[in-house]
C-alpha cells in the first residue's frame, strides 16, 4: 500500500472537512518538518483549531514526521514553490503518493511523472474501503465544498453516491 505524503493545503482541508482522523487511522500518513511548521506552528499563531487537531495526531504518532536531514540534500524542484511543497517533492520516494489540492503543484507533478491525489480522492478511498459511511462522507464533503472547485464537488458527490 502507498505511503501518503501530505502537503499543507491538503492536510488543512482534510482537517477542516473532519476526516483527518479517519485518514490517519487507515493509511500510512507522513508530513515533512516544513509542512508541520506551516500547518501546526503557523496555524497555532493564528489560533486556527485545525492546527491543534493536526498536532494531536502527530503527537500520538498517527501522523509521522519525515526528518529534514533525510531529504533536504535532495534536488530541489525546477519550479518555484512554497517551502512546504518543495519539501514534499524532496521527501518523495517510490511507493509514496503525494496528497495535494493545489492545481499548480499537481500540474508540476504530472509533468515530472510523480503520483499524486487530492483530499477528495482520499474521502472517496475511505468510502470504498468502507471506513467511512456514506452519511459521514456526505457531511465531510459539504465541509469540503467551498474549498474545492464546484465541478470536482459534483463529481465526488456522484462517486460517493454511486459507490
Amino acid at each position: 500500500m502507498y505511503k501518503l505524503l501530505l502537503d499543507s493545503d491538503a492536510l488543512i482541508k482534510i482537517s477542516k472537512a473532519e476526516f483527518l482522523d479517519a485518514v490517519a487511522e487507515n493509511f500510512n500518513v507522513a508530513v515533512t518538518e516544513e509542512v508541520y511548521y506551516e500547518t501546526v506552528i503557523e496555524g497555532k499563531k493564528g489560533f486556527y483549531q485545525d492546527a491543534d487537531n493536526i498536532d494531536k495526531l502527530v503527537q500520538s504518532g498517527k501522523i509521522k514526521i519525515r526528518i529534514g536531514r533525510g531529504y533536504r540534500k535532495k534536488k530541489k524542484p525546477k519550479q518555484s514553490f512554497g517551502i512546504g511543497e518543495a519539501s514534499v517533492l524532496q521527501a518523495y520516494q517510490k511507493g509514496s503518493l503525494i496528497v495535494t489540492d493545489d492545481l499548480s503543484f499537481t500540474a508540476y507533478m504530472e509533468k515530472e511523472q510523480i503520483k499524486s491525489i487530492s483530499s477528495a480522492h482520499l474521502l472517496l478511498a475511505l468510502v470504498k474501503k468502507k471506513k467511512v459511511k456514506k452519511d459521514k462522507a456526505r457531511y465531510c464533503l459539504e465541509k469540503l465544498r467551498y474549498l474545492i472547485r464546484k465541478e470536482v464537488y459534483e463529481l465526488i458527490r456522484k462517486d460517493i453516491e454511486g459507490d
Partner: protein
Amino acid sequence: MTQVQPLRIEQNILRLAELRGKDEHTTKTAAIKQFLYSGAEEYLLKLCSHGRISIGKAAEILHKSIYDLQESAKQKGIQLGITAKQYQEHKKLIHGLV
C-alpha cells in the same frame, strides 16, 4: 525587504484612505498599504486558481499562512484546487489505497 515607490494617487482614493484611516484608527499611509495588499492578495489567489502559482508560494509572498489564504479565497469566492479533469485522471490511483 521594502522599497520606496513614488506613486500618483487620485484625490478620491486618497480621501477614501483618509476615511479608512479614521475608521480603523490608523494612518492614511497604512490604509493605502492595506488597499495595496488586499489587491495583491486577490490577484495572487486568482493566479493560484489558474494554476500559475501554488498556494504555498502565494502565502510566502504575502507573509500569510495557508489557512489565511484558504479563508480569503472562500470569502472572495475564488475557487482553488485541482480541476475536474485532474480529479478523473488521478482517481485510478486510489485503487492502490483500497
